[in-house]
């Protein structure tokens, strides 16, 4: 009975708030999706954090540090939204550490040159924006509000990345090659960020029904590609897909088939950086244990005063 009333509410585009009744399936789906989104922001700090110490100018250093700091903030907003569903941040971190929760596979690729900072900002944040703009209209209130706040801050990230790529493309021969090389390595993983074809995505059905998800994986992927190809052409870079072609009748770009074997390998834990990323997070968490314990001990002493 409640399920029917709930679905009517969803169909009327009303927001669901933390205190409202919701089907257990809806709650579990949201916890999974929001927490994985949060984990992605946090793990994403690592490949970019890798270049803060080596940023080639003071301005670039400050911009990159601000960007990574933003990502931490986004993770925090999302953990915050997730906790309203009745799960603690500690539990979520434990799930991440035990491999029970995932994060976006793109961050399982290494950042090998300064140009990767450009590619990541331009492509990875670009793909994230396409997804997040759509999620602003998600049915769960705290998630929707978190997304609106994140989207406002995200556009600076993509511009930062694209600016780096544009500068490199107009620079020395080594810089141009660096930019093209970064694009070559990050293009396919970026379009993989949108996930499997909808036909191969088991949870898509409920997600669309409950308006957690507003557009399909394939729709979002197509939207990203259509936006990004002209941006690459503008700065003289070549997208590493020989089958990429504008299709006049469709009004969209046709593109080659994704290497699904690589996709599932990386999702399932067998990518270049999976182990490294997780160990880094676990180690940071364990190294901080004594600090968190001390802070709590001190807080208790304060309360007793």
């Amino acid at each position, binding site marked *: 009975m409640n399920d029917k009333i709930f679905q009517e509410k969803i169909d009327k585009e009303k927001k669901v708030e933390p205190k409202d009744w919701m089907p257990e399936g809806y709650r579990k789906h949201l916890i999974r999706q929001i927490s994985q989104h949060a984990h992605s922001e946090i793990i994403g*700090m690592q490949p970019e954090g890798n270049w803060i110490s080596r940023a080639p100018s003071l301005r670039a250093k400050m911009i990159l*540090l601000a960007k990574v700091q933003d990502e931490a*903030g986004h993770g*925090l907003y999302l953990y915050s939204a997730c906790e309203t569903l009745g799960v603690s941040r500690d539990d979520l971190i434990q799930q991440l550490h035990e491999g029970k929760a995932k994060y976006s596979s793109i961050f399982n690729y290494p950042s090998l040159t300064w140009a990767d900072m450009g590619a990541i900002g331009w492509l990875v944040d670009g793909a994230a924006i396409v997804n997040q703009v759509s999620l602003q209209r998600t049915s769960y209130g705290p998630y929707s509000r978190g997304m609106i706040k994140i989207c406002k801050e995200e556009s600076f990230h993509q511009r930062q990345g694209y600016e780096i790529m544009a500068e490199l493309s107009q620079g020395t021969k080594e810089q141009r090659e660096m930019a093209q090389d970064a694009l070559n390595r990050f293009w396919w993983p970026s379009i993989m960020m949108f996930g499997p074809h909808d036909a191969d995505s088991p949870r898509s059905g409920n997600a669309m029904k409950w308006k957690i998800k507003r557009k399909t994986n394939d729709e979002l992927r197509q939207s990203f590609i259509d936006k990004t190809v002209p941006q690459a052409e503008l700065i003289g870079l070549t997208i590493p897909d020989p089958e990429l072609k504008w299709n006049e009748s469709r009004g969209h770009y046709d593109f080659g088939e994704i290497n699904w074997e690589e996709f599932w390998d990386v999702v399932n834990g067998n990518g270049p950086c999976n182990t490294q990323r997780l160990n880094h997070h676990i180690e940071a968490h364990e190294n901080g244990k004594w600090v968190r314990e001390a802070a709590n001990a001190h807080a208790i*002493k304060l309360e007793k005063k």
Partner: protein
Amino acid sequence: MSLIKYILRIADSSLIEGQRLSEWCSKGPTLEEDIAMSNIALDLFGQANGFLEYASKIDKKKSPDDFAFKRDEGDFYNLKISEQPNGHFGTTMVKLFFSSTYRYLLYEELSSSNDETISALSLKSIKEVKYHLKHSKSWIIRLGDGTKESNNKVQQSLNTLWEFTGEYFEEDSIDLEMKKNGIGLTKSLENKWKDIVIDTLNKAKLEVPKSTYMQTGGKQGLHTEYLGKILTEMQSIPRKYPDAKW
């Protein structure tokens, strides 16, 4: 030129400290603290940049990035404490606490400098440094008066870093020249610094280290083994591609 060297001393300490602090990115004990430390590092880079721009204006040949990325260790004038490794979180907070106390007092004095630019830069930076001091001070107290383990760890950090605190109060010929011109400090910050630090350590149930040996040399370009490695990393890209613009 004395004025440039004086400015670089301030700029370099902020730059190298910021560089060390930003190493904590994605490694903080909590997400909130990760953000806080990145914020502080950003402030320090901003302050360094401000002073380097002034140095660049006077020099007329080198840009702020030239100063940051093309000087060798011997031409850096940061205090030695800036380049010390982060160690564990307690060590980092002790470093930050010592330096923020110093910086806060320094900018307070320099905001009435005869040099307009130094005065303006100092005024601008005081608010930020006040927050750095508040933040690090509260962590010293929290960790000192937390658990037995945290108290031991921070006490060790204090004992290790104490010998780098003498450099804050050194006065050489450049300092004297700046003092004479009304540009630099007119009096020592040592007593005020000790007041703040000792008061905090007492609140934190920590012992003030008793050793009197003090390191020296940073202000003259004589550093510890750490600076070379920091610069190798920091300057690697512009040095590898000298013709490129970034």
